[in-house]
């Protein structure tokens, strides 16, 4: 099978590729958001602990 046939998707390229592209972007965004959320919460918690340890 050649590459341009594959990319053409039998004439449905304009529908197939955006579908797969959007899905992949959504998956990547979800991982990134979840990791960022956890990292932020961790940072906040650590800062709180530091603040509690050395009262100014």
């Amino acid at each position, binding site marked *: 099978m050649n590459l341009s046939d594959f990319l053409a998707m039998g004439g449905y390229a304009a*529908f197939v590729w955006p579908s*797969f592209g959007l*899905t992949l972007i959504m998956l990547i965004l979800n991982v990134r958001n979840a990791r960022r959320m956890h990292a932020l919460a961790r940072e906040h*918690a650590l800062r709180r*602990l530091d603040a509690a340890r050395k009262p100014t």
Partner: protein
Amino acid sequence: MNWTWFHKLASPPHFYRLAGRITPWLGWPAFLLIVIGLYGGLVLAPPDYQQGDAFRIVYVHAPSAWMSMFIYGMMAIAAAIGLIWRIKLAHAVAAAAAPVGAWFTFVTLVTGSLWGRPMWGTWWQWDARMTSELILLFLYLGLIALRASIDDRERADRASAVLALVGVVNLPIIHYSVYWWNTLHQGSTITKFGKPSITFDMLWPLLVMFVAFKLFFGMVLMLRVRGEVLRRERDASWLREELTR
């Protein structure tokens, strides 16, 4: 029956550590299966005799649609457990699941639209399947907004749990819409009883994607619940030990 395992699971420090340990065991298999499923769906599966290559959208559309409903059901069960037994961790799970469910629902609607345009000649139709899936998106967004609008965490948890449970009524409507009403949407390809209506070449990548999306959701949920637990337990003594070790 012995319920100690359940109480142990519901304890935030235990769950926090457990979630951290199992995250990679969900994430890497999910990644591998998505790669295999995409290759199978885009390259190995033959084109459909009626829909040509457009049918390949099923490999992202159907698993997303299934996840949009599965996540809602799981979230509602967590919300019920939180309401009935007052288990804080269950509310944390429900809170963590809603945005992920909203994303899968959004992708279901958009990929469905991209599939509908060449096959049905329309991007959108107010038929039962599509309308009820759109309501699902609004339910998720409503839950996220409701939670964000109540400052008191316990009240936010309870209000969101009640709304999540009321919204469960939408799940059978989505599922049976293609049988109850005369919809544009096709019926199920895979049913629990009876033979699937497609050939094995087309079927296996779909099954791989189903499993991959489940694992993927598991991984993202574990990460998000850990974040939720850190926010909710910020004054707990176990957190000090956990984070400063």
